[in-house]
């Protein structure tokens, strides 16, 4: 009996994780706020820890209006030029 494989027959993945930073000290950090309840408050608290522990510099908040969809390309492009890394997360 010959069965077809039902998994994706297209490219395995086209998007990949960025490589980790070698160190956090003195890096510029961005906050990607996702419009979830309490998200921006929680993210500011996390960013403050990076400031205190690693001397990071925090940039203004970047926003995406839809928590469940990828951030708009222009938001990511702007952030990529401004910061070394982003933090994001859900607050509810």
């Amino acid at each position, binding site marked *: *009996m*010959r*069965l*077809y*494989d*039902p*998994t*994706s*027959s*297209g*490219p*395995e*993945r*086209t*998007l990949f994780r960025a490589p980790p930073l070698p160190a956090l000290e003195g890096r510029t950090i961005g906050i990607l706020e996702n*419009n979830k*309840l309490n998200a921006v408050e929680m993210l500011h608290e996390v960013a403050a820890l990076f400031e205190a522990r690693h001397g990071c510099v925090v940039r203004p908040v970047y926003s995406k209006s*839809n*928590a*469940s*969809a*990828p951030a708009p390309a222009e938001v990511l492009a702007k952030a990529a030029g401004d910061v070394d890394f982003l933090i994001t997360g859900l607050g509810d």
Partner: protein
Amino acid sequence: MPFDSRRIHDVPDDLLAAIDYCYEQGWTDGLPVIPPVVDRVDATLAFEGRPPEAVIATHPATGLQLTVHAAAVNAVMAGCMPEYFPVLVAAFEAMDKPDFNFHGSTASTGGSAPLLIVSGPVADDIGMNADVNLFGPGNRANATIGRAVRLILRNVFQMIPGISDKSTQGNPGKYSFCIAERSRSNPWPLLCETQDYPPGVSSVTVFAAGGFCNVENHGGNTPEQILLSVADAMANYGCITLGQSVVILSPEHMRIVAGAGWSRSDAQRFLFTHAKRSIEGMQSVGKYRDSEYDHQHGSNAHALAEAGFVHRGMTPDDILITMGGGDAGGHSCFIPSWSRGRGSIFQHKPIGVCIDCV
């Protein structure tokens, strides 16, 4: 010639062993699948005009692609007859529209299941059920088309429960959630007739749905009484949001509503007006947010949005209403959106024809 000989699995010529093999590969939704043998997949592909490698949908977060071929393989596994295939293809074309946001609705803790509503003559042509036990078991087309959606989400897009599908409670519709719109005795235009398709063209509407809520009312005999029951279900604290809604009126309820001369638009406006909670009420359960209220009551607010209240949805058009179910029984239903706002918007596509492609 097989589509891709590297993707052929040779298994012993034993049906039960092949079913077990599919389990071992992690290809099932927990129920046994039809082993996707080559001949049966090829018969399904005959119902699609594009080549097997044509891409129907792309996962925005991973780039994984659904080809016509992969869709056919999963359709066979779900138990679809080949003639069901155009419905499945159209459903994923609709889900691929960015505003449907099928990654978010599939991955979320919210437990969304894609609800498919098939409208037009194709429903009868392939033997779909729009009648008694509408959301229940018993009809092959309804059951297997909906199931094929889930198998594709699992096998092609790798939305695996607990890994990439983080649904807190799940949803029984995640096994299968596919109905036909009832045309028999329906006093309102069919959905496909309101979606600007040429006469005779069927459509499928997709909706990132939460759980099913039965709306029982055997005592009401006016449109207001029936629809207030529906509006109350839509506005319950557990699910009121700015998201969209699907309402399926039973034939008994529809006879009361449309029999009094109410149009679909009348019913939508009534439901939007009454499916609401006060600011104080929303605050009492901790669900009130200034930003949501301002969004609903800002410069583009609908005229029926009442100051001091949070309504379900943004406009009456956010409430999809049609008729379905058996002749007997005062049981309609309300199905909330997974999205609490505009995170997923219902979409539709024609079935088996190319209207807007190039």
